[in-house]
């Protein structure tokens, strides 16, 4: 059933302009980040690691939270509009599964975004004259971004479901991204849902990636996902009881 729901969500997003954002937004930091790297190559000595910071420093805290918020707001707006909840809640599936299917769809978009960011990063590096990319680190950064992004998606889905609006959850996502910076500056980046994406992608200190280890990060992500998914299931159930 979960895969049927997931497929239904994917069909709803077909021909959505969301894909425009998914393709074009990561191109900007890739192009301009590389240009900035090349302009300051005498200061930025750490090659691939410096380039990664240039690509992702602003992306992680301003733009990815907004992109994930837009993905999630769109997934929920589809139901808010035109009595979509009425139709969805008649599907013979557990309420929790409905939320999980939306989370899986948002997760797929986050995953594709991470893969796209990774591809652009490696291509930019080669164009900038770098060779032998640190493949293992890149995979870990992207996986970390995916883990943090899933938590962010779960929070934003909850917010988007509770608020019958498109812009408001995106605004909250933006404020959350800013708060993520503050938490990271206070060395609490690994506990705040809005910091986890940047923390996982190690954009501000890519070489320190293995100092703390990724196990606590993974456990925190899983913990948050369980809590937010349970909350999402409760919200969907309440929506069913109250009528949409």
């Amino acid at each position: 059933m979960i895969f049927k729901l997931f497929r239904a969500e994917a069909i709803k997003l077909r021909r959505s302009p969301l894909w425009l954002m998914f393709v074009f937004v990561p191109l900007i930091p890739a192009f301009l980040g590389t240009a900035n790297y090349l302009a300051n190559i005498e200061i930025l000595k750490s090659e691939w690691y410096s380039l990664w910071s240039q690509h992702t420093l602003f992306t992680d805290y301003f733009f990815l939270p907004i992109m994930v918020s837009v993905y999630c707001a769109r997934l929920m707006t589809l139901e808010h509009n035109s009595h979509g909840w009425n139709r969805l809640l008649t599907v013979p599936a557990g309420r929790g599964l409905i939320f999980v299917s939306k989370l899986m769809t948002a997760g797929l978009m986050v995953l594709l975004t991470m893969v796209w960011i990774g591809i652009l990063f490696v291509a930019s590096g080669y164009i900038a004259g770098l060779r032998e990319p640190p493949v293992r680190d890149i995979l870990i950064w992207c996986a970390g971004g995916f883990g943090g992004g899933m938590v962010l998606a779960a929070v934003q889905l909850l917010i988007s479901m509770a608020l019958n609006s498109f812009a408001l959850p995106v605004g909250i996502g933006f404020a959350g991204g800013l708060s993520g910076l503050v938490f990271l500056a206070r060395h609490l980046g690994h506990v705040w849902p809005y910091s986890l994406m940047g923390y996982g992608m190690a954009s501000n200190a890519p070489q320190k990636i293995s100092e703390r280890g990724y196990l606590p990060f993974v456990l925190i992500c899983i913990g948050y996902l369980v809590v937010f998914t349970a909350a999402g299931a409760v919200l969907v159930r309440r929506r069913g009881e109250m009528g949409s």
Partner: protein
Amino acid sequence: MIKLLKCEYLKTRRRYIFLTLLAVTAMALVWTLNGRVTEDTRRLGWMIYLYQLPVLDSVIMPLMAMLAASRLWDIEHRGGMLRRLVPVSGRNELYDAKVIYGLSMLIPCLVIDWAGVIVFGFVNGFQGDFPLRLYLTRLLCALLPTVTIFLLQNALSMAFRNQAVPFAVGITGTFVGMFSMFLPRLPWLRRLTVWGGYGALSFVGMYGYTAETRWRDVFFTVDEPDPFAAIFLTLAALAAYSMGKRLFKLKEV
């Protein structure tokens, strides 16, 4: 017009648009003012913030403009409200009411952001005379691109029922605007994009900062804001406003 503005207020009541914008402003201020105040930053504080504010504005204000515009038009798109509104109030007046109402939420946020830095400076005892003229110029230099971007986003949010489109444009533009400030070799990126206006109108330069000496040998230069960018932004604002209005007139409701 007063009636239409009141209508806008009633439509957005309990929709928390202004509250969201205030929350983003508050978070932006926390982020801006986050950090330890040292003897050096106290000595140079007024100029440091004049130098840094354009970067912060280039991220925060375009996204707030995007949010405000989207929320105002999303209300109408959803229930097919334009079909009811347009026959009872002229299209011109309705469009103007949206613009005025949106700006009346956005501009106070900009002023709060600006005033917050000044209050922070006085509370922390920034040294030297408060450069009022420079700060007023800074406010105007932030206002012009903000209004221009809002007018553009307003037109896009009106034209597209699916708000993901104006969001995609806004996010991409904000990215370009912010990065343009770190790419002095691409001046056209600042001067010929509305999002780059914050950088193009920035008039304070900072020199002498190094990782070793940090703020010790830092000095600032003050220039005039780029008149070409100011003219470009003014023309872009007029174009966005008239294009939006024209599209609204042609729009089938």
